[in-house]
């Protein structure tokens, strides 16, 4: 079960906060650590990142693996069972051409799935506020308590009136042809569609790879189908039809897979060829934005007039670089897309608010299985404070308030049951995303030493310093029960360190948890 997308990323942030001191002096130290994080770790959309931000995919990748398996298995069977016969009987060019097609298909598939489709980064708080002001001036209203009608701007492009819509999640006016993908929770430029088969959105930056993928896949499918049929026919001329099928059972499987795929894939290629030649996106075609049925005056303002130019531009035009800078480092003073202020609270929850909502729901749930009276008291108090804090954000230093609330919620949410804690040192950034369990993700987390026995010393020493922190890790795991056990176990220290800390924790855990909650409550109440 691969770990989820943006959720655990945010949860992993909590592990940075130490329960040792809840004083504000922790924040500059904390900020130094946060400054060392890469931007993909704090990305607000629902995407998964691998290889330290180099690879970017959507959250649900199950169907992508199915696509991979289908292609690999079918091609593998073809090369293993049909090609030897065909190479001898007809020509050795068959496996060669098949091989070239196969590599092209895999290359374009991986390129489509792993690249940034053209995600538009969310507006910084200053920009969002400025836009709000301008919209209010345009509407002639002050920020009201009710949600005003959807905001649109009209623009004339090439003689056609195009409506630009305001995106409430990203807080921007979407450029023409951009659309917000609800699955990935991002605005994507020149949004075509979200393709579950490639596990990613198809947008401006990866449309040509997608097109080449389906085109080459249709050639490959037709190729394999044709030669499998040829193979069976040639064999049955020698030994009879049923015997031929018995001799090469793989061919039957391949023929079935190819037969069912051919219709959809060839059809899709044809459809996208039409879209490219008329310079439309799937989105526009489905909505009929530029069709003649809407009106005689309706035409596509983006088309270059002739098919050849449209095709050239779509396939060979310049590729714009990724705007989200996944591997850059987060600067402490860089404006991050922040939680909305009170005035904009009506216009959609942000990630941090929805996270807190999730946490408080989990707390409420846990109340049903309360372990002790004191635990219950802390939970109740924390919940109440959390609700209060949410409204009070605008009045105080937002970031600190959010952090304190998070840490208190988390400390209170830590279960007292002995689930395996994940052993990490302070330096480790948990949000490594090795959903595929790839070594590159865990090794590139900035951990200088490999998971050998040496780091056990450091983790031990680190562990004694961060004993209470372990509760957070435990809590962190518990908070996301649907995930697989956390990857840092790959880098875990020795079992000795593990048991030692568990022993130290064991008896005192209840009291220290209680202590932490109380400390947190005191701090929050003084805010």
């Amino acid at each position, binding site marked *: 079960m691969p770990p989820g997308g943006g959720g655990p990323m945010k949860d992993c942030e909590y592990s940075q906060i130490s329960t040792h001191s809840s004083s504000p002096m922790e924040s500059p130290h904390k900020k130094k650590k946060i400054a060392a994080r890469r931007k993909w770790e704090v990305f607000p959309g629902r995407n998964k990142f691998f290889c330290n931000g180099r690879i970017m995919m959507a959250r649900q990748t199950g169907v992508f693996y199915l696509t991979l398996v289908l292609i690999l298995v079918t091609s593998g069977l073809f090369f293993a069972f049909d090609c030897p016969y065909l190479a001898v009987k007809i020509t050795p060019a068959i496996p060669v051409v098949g091989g070239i097609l196969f590599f*092209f298909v895999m*290359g374009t598939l991986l*390129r489509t799935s792993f690249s940034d489709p053209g995600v*538009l*980064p969310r*507006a*910084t708080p*200053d*920009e969002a506020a*400025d*836009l709000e002001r301008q919209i209010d001036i345009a509407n002639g209203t002050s920020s009201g308590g009710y949600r005003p009608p959807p905001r649109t701007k009209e*623009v*004339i*492009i*090439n003689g056609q009136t*195009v409506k*630009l819509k305001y995106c409430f999640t990203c807080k*921007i*006016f979407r*450029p*023409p*042809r951009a659309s917000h993908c609800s699955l990935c929770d991002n605005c994507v*430029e*020149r949004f075509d569609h979200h393709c579950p088969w490639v596990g990613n959105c198809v947008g401006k930056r990866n449309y040509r790879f997608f097109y*080449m993928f389906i085109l080459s896949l249709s050639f490959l499918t037709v190729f394999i189908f044709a030669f499998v049929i040829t193979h069976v026919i040639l064999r049955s001329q020698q030994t009879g039809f049923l015997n031929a099928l018995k001799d090469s059972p793989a061919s039957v499987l391949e023929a079935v897979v190819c037969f069912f795929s051919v219709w959809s894939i060839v059809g899709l290629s044809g459809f996208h060829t039409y879209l490219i030649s008329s310079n439309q996106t799937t989105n526009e075609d489905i909505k009929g934005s530029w069709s003649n049925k809407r009106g005689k005056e309706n035409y596509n*303002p*983006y088309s270059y007039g002739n098919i050849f130019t449209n095709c*050239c*531009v779509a*396939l*060979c*035009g*310049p*590729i*714009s*670089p990724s*705007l*989200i800078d996944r591997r850059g480092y987060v600067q402490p003073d860089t404006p991050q897309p922040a939680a909305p202020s009170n005035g904009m609270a009506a216009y959609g929850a942000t990630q941090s608010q929805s996270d807190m909502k999730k946490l408080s729901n989990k707390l409420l749930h846990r109340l049903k299985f309360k372990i002790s009276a004191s635990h219950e008291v802390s939970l109740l108090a924390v919940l109440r404070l959390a609700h209060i804090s949410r409204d009070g954000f605008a009045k105080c230093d937002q970031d600190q308030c959010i952090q304190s609330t998070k840490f208190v919620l988390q400390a209170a949410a830590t279960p007292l049951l002995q689930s395996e804690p994940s052993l990490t040192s302070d330096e480790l950034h948990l949000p490594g995303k090795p959903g595929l369990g790839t070594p590159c993700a865990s090794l590139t987390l900035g951990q200088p030493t490999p998971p050998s026995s040496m780091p056990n010393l450091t983790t031990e020493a680190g562990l004694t310093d961060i004993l209470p922190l372990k509760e957070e890790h435990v809590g962190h795991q518990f908070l996301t029960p649907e995930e697989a056990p956390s990857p840092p176990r790959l880098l875990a220290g020795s079992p000795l360190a593990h048991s030692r800390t568990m022993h130290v924790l064991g008896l005192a855990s209840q009291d220290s948890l209680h202590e932490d909650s109380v400390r947190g409550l005191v701090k929050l109440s003084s805010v």
Partner: protein
Amino acid sequence: MATEVHNLQELRRSASLATKVFVQRDYSDGTICQFQTKFPPELDSRIERQLFEETVKTLNSFYAEAEKIGGSSYLEGCLACATAYFIFLCMETHYEKVLKKISRYIQEQNEKIFAPRGLLLTDPVERGMRVIEISIYEDRCSSGSSSSGSSGSGSSSGGGGGAGAR
């Protein structure tokens, strides 16, 4: 003028950020990257209209050059496709080259024109190509920091009473 030029670090240290102005994208020519040349009213007292418009127009021309569709871009696209896009491990795309040019230009403009007036341009690429962000600074210290085009410390917080520094 050289002695009075604020360098950017000095500006950030000695000045406090007053407000930010955003120049939005201009979509009237389609999806190509272009910014509106309309002069924001907040900059009225800070910089000459013509200088500002010239900067924006130059930026627009850079972006047009980056996104230009013609022989060289087709060649680059075909070459890249033929090498399965591995060629981008060795060289950077034309677009990226132009973006580097743009950031050098913006830095130059900041040093020469905008910083002396207490303004700072942010590269649009850092804002997702949505806006040109112009930060307006006010000088906290009044000594030796006034230069001809800015209203200096006169417009510090507390209402515009002190604008008579000019």
